[in-house]
């Protein structure tokens, strides 16, 4: 019995190690490549960190006005659409779980249908409509378009958190003399606060990672978001790999750090959303 346990342990940890390499290798590769010059990729093909590594690509990235502008654009667009989505989402999730009113179930269904609708369905009309309303190539326009998926996403995830609160809480607060809005603000919102953190991170990264709408609606250099700016490093089929990977590292590592800081909340959020939702 003891021997099979040892064997099983070896098997378990070997598998975990294989998975860890499979999962982490692209991250390692991104970082080592971000330190390479384009020319040395051909002259010095290596799988290990190269001896001719340099920080030149990072220097170029931080010196690039366009890239800094794109980081700024992404942060502005994604924070605005996240804040609005959470505000609207809390209001809607509260109404859908605590209040009883006619049409509630239909509205809940509309939220889920919007949540399930793929972005690939709507990018064509958005391109035309935004152009018609003179909103293409503006940050404002992109925030509005992003609301089309951040609001249903945030509401859907928040619904799970609101549903997990015992209904007696709200009633007790009102018996103690609080009105509905006070009960929402002082009792319910603090209780779903961890949920708000996870919803904020999931919604923000969802907007930050979005490529298609950004590609279709914001074309001019001064309103590009990060993914579009990185794609535009390539001229025709020529990809400057070192620079692309340096830009990608700068774009990805803070977001990944955010994920690991909020990991516990995020897993809970995904779970509440998909499992109970």
């Amino acid at each position, binding site marked *: 019995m003891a021997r099979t346990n040892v064997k099983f342990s070896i098997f378990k940890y070997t598998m975990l190690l294989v*998975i860890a390499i499979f999962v982490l290798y692209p991250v390692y*590769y991104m970082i080592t490549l971000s330190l390479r010059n384009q020319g040395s990729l051909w002259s010095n093909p290596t799988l290990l960190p190269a001896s001719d590594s340099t920080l030149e690509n990072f220097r170029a990235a931080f010196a690039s006005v366009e890239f800094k502008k794109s980081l700024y654009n992404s942060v502005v667009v994604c924070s605005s659409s996240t804040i609005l989505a959470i505000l609207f989402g809390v209001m809607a999730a509260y109404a859908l779980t605590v209040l009883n*009113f006619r049409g509630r179930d239909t509205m809940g269904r509309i939220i889920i249908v919007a949540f399930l609708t793929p972005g*690939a369905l709507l990018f064509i009309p958005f391109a035309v409509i935004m152009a018609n309303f003179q909103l293409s190539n503006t940050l404002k326009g992109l925030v509005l378009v992003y609301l089309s998926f951040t609001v249903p996403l945030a509401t859907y995830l928040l619904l799970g958190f609101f549903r997990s609160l015992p209904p007696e809480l709200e009633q007790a607060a009102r018996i103690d003399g609080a009105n509905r809005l006070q009960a929402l603000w002082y009792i319910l919102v603090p209780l779903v606060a961890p949920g708000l953190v996870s919803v904020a991170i999931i919604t923000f*990264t969802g907007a930050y990672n979005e490529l298609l709408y950004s590609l279709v609606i914001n074309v001019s250099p001064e309103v590009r978001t990060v993914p579009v700016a990185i794609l535009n490093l390539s001229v025709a089929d020529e990809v400057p790999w070192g620079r692309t990977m340096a830009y*990608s590292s700068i774009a990805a590592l803070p977001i990944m750090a955010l994920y690991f800081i909020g990991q516990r909340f995020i897993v809970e959020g995904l779970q509440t959303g*998909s499992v109970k*939702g």
Partner: protein
Amino acid sequence: MATISQAQVKESTVKRARRRGGIFDPTSILGYFMMLPAMAVLGIFFAYPLGFEIWSSLTDMTLGNDAKFIGFDNYSRLFSDAEYLTAAKNSVVYVTSVQAGKFVLGLGIAILLHQKLVARGFWRAVVLVPYAMPGFVAFLIWKLIYNPDVGSLNILLTKLGLIDAPIAFLGDRDWAMASVIFATIWRGFPFWAILFLAALQAVPKELYEAAAVDGANAWQRFRNISLPGIRPVVLVVFLISTINTINSFEAIWLTTAGGPSDATVILPIFAYKGLTSFNIGQSAAAALSLVPVAIVITFFVLRKMKKDQ
């Protein structure tokens, strides 16, 4: 008899009144007020564009012309368009393979993480890495890994002596689809693994203990306790993830852009290419041809959720 039924009627009316007031009750008004921003957003940025798209799919709209109503011409033209049919076929191959891969890998890793482990939290965090990485970055890295001239996969295979000449994983018709599928699985399996793990952890331990007492072996316990326990989660994860996979524009646009020739064109890529050549009516029709699939999936998700409540 009559009194009882009258009392019952009264009680049920009272109940209903308490459950759901008229639309002018204070509760209802507060409810509508709270729903207003979300509903307004969905009206303007969901229902309106969708309506606009349906209308434009029935016209010969291009950029700058006055759209003329042409009925279902765009649709009938699509179904005789060889590239559209290839895109539809590729979509089926791509989505089925990616989902099968994510299921197997996700379930396997969830089971592994569910074992007794030192530092389980650490391993779970490691598994989450591909999901935490922005998709556009992940697919650029995979494009580089697959690169025939400087990519690490070719360097590795050459150093191991497995190949003589580099393989253009994304540029060769025989390899492109499989390579893209593999990269998509890498990026997508953590979502499955983490949710499967959560579902496994929610299965009561007593069930396993009781089964062990009854003499069930490991496979029987998995087959008869674990699998039924996680089935509801599998279904919802599968449906949500399928919609996202049908939708995966960036996975393909950033790696092969649909090539070589049309080997990896899936429907969103086909529609995007149509838009960039300003063929709005036609690409609207192509995008809308995803709707029947979305409706079927949405229907199952809604039904499943109703059952849960």
